């Protein structure tokens, strides 16, 4: 929780952490190791690495939040419809899920970004299209279980329509697993975004993407290992934070995992 709090704070209020601009060039100070002026050193163009990473947090969290939100929205809507209406709606949705699951996730994301072109928008669309399947499967399963319960029958008996039953009665019950999946999914999205950027297909420079910073850092491993090291640490701690937060929320919301 503390890790995520620091990263969210960095994304929201970067000036709390650094006064330097992530774009300010200082060619004379390029590839400098950490010092008092530049606590994490500088990159290949002499830009302050701390400020690149702090402003990069905003970019990473934004991409992760919107892509996970998009994936959850698609998955929840399709999962609710498939589980509630069954028959051909269910068959069609599940075949679509099978089709998407036939591809290794990062490969499908790469192929989608390749056709959509590099950039923030493409990365968000690609990740949402890659990650929606897990939400659809879980929401469908919960919906199937919930719609067979007496309270749904009761709601129908007092005249509630399909939309009301879905939104007022079933949706609140699918939210717990969706929140757990989404929190864990934030970590995966941060890694996926930085992987795409690392391969040169994600967010494009001069945007301070962590993946890009790390990719450039690999070119200067011998002379300036601090670039790759610190940018990697930023990604790892963010993912670690979301994984731990996801585990914590799961323990809290899922009685199976609650400590006795």
């Amino acid at each position, binding site marked *: 929780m503390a890790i995520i709090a620091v990263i969210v704070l960095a994304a929201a209020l970067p000036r709390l952490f650094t006064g330097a601009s992530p774009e300010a060039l200082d060619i004379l100070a390029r590839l400098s190791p950490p010092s008092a002026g530049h606590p994490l050193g500088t990159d290949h163009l002499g830009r302050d690495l701390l400020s690149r990473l702090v402003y990069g947090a905003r970019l990473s969290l934004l991409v992760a939040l919107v892509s996970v939100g998009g994936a959850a929205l698609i998955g929840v809507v399709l999962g609710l419809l498939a589980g509630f209406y069954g028959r051909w709606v269910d068959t069609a949705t599940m*075949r679509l899920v*099978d*089709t*998407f*699951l*036939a*591809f*290794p*996730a*990062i*490969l*499908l994301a*790469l*192929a*989608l970004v*390749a*056709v*959509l*072109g590099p950039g923030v928008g493409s990365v968000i669309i690609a990740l949402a299209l890659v990650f929606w399947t897990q939400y659809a499967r879980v929401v469908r399963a919960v919906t199937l279980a919930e719609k067979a319960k007496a309270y749904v029958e009761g709601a129908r008996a007092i005249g509630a329509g399909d939309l009301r039953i879905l939104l007022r009665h079933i949706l609140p019950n699918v939210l717990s697993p969706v929140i757990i999946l989404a929190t864990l999914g934030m*970590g995966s999205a941060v*890694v996926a975004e*930085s*992987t795409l950027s*690392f*391969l*040169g*297909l994600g967010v494009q420079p001069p945007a301070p993407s962590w*993946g890009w910073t*790390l990719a450039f*850092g*690999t070119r200067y*491993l*011998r002379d300036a*290992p601090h670039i*790759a*090291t610190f940018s*990697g640490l930023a*990604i*790892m*701690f963010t*993912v*670690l934070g979301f*994984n*731990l937060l996801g585990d914590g929320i799961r323990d809290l919301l899922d009685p199976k995992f609650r400590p006795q």
Partner: protein
Amino acid sequence: MARYAGRRLLLLVPVILSAAVVTFALLLLLPGDPALALLGQEASPEELARFRRLLGLDRPVPVQLGLYLWRVAQADFGRSITLDAPVLRLIGATLPATLELATASIVLAVVVGIPLGLLAARRRGTVLDTGTMLLAQLGVSMPVFWLGVLLILLFAVRLNWLPSFGRGAPLLSVLLAGDGAAALDSLRHLVLPTVTLAFFNLALLSRLTRWAMLEVLEEDYVRTARAKGQRERVVLSHHALRNALLPIVTIVGLQFGNALGGAVVTETIYGWPGMGRLVVQAIGQRDFPVVQGAVLVLAVLFSLFNLLVDLTYALIDPRIRYE
């Protein structure tokens, strides 16, 4: 079992067919004219027309799709735009390297990850348990490409112990030929990419093994076995481990499929001449026949491994009967 396997194999056909439709649709997603998008603004009208004919882009979309599926059914993925060679030949030349790397990484993950998980479960609550789980938590949080960079930095740049780029001779063939020096060279090239690709799976496997063992150790039959006075080693290996294996086998199978996807990143970092690197290079050069062919072949392999996992269920767990 045979009937179930046959039915599952048949069910794979629509999945592969729809995966082929997705790879075909990739070309349709290209903004604007695909020929212009792939060849660039400097292409002459004649070149564009020739290119459209080559890819069948001058025909209606349903006809293009039909032709594409027909060609794919005959394992004809077209020709590479930049390398001027059949895509199938490029895939054939790079697939063995990817399979070698994926296999080596899974072997490493299993050989290290499962014993680590067992040890952590056996010594629950000790420093060893905490240390192993901390390592596992780091392993699942660490981006593959960063681990690769760190390993290169330490073992190739600083210590100069291992090569950081390329592949030696195919390991299996030099082992079969009994060429010790070549085998050593291949192994040296294999170490860093294998560790990089294996680390995430290894971490996941050790966490899962620990969890599965702790679940099973709570079961009544384990208590009964202990009450009968059986030695702890026998209780663990004969009663607990056998039953904890089901989720572990599932994950190992799925991890092999994931390793095929993960190879995209690992191969790019280490210049490993496999299919993952082929895809990344093809994307960089906008060589779409190669992208489509390689993505489809990897998806088919991925689906086949997932099917194998499901079939393994039935073999190792007699409680599961498929109708």
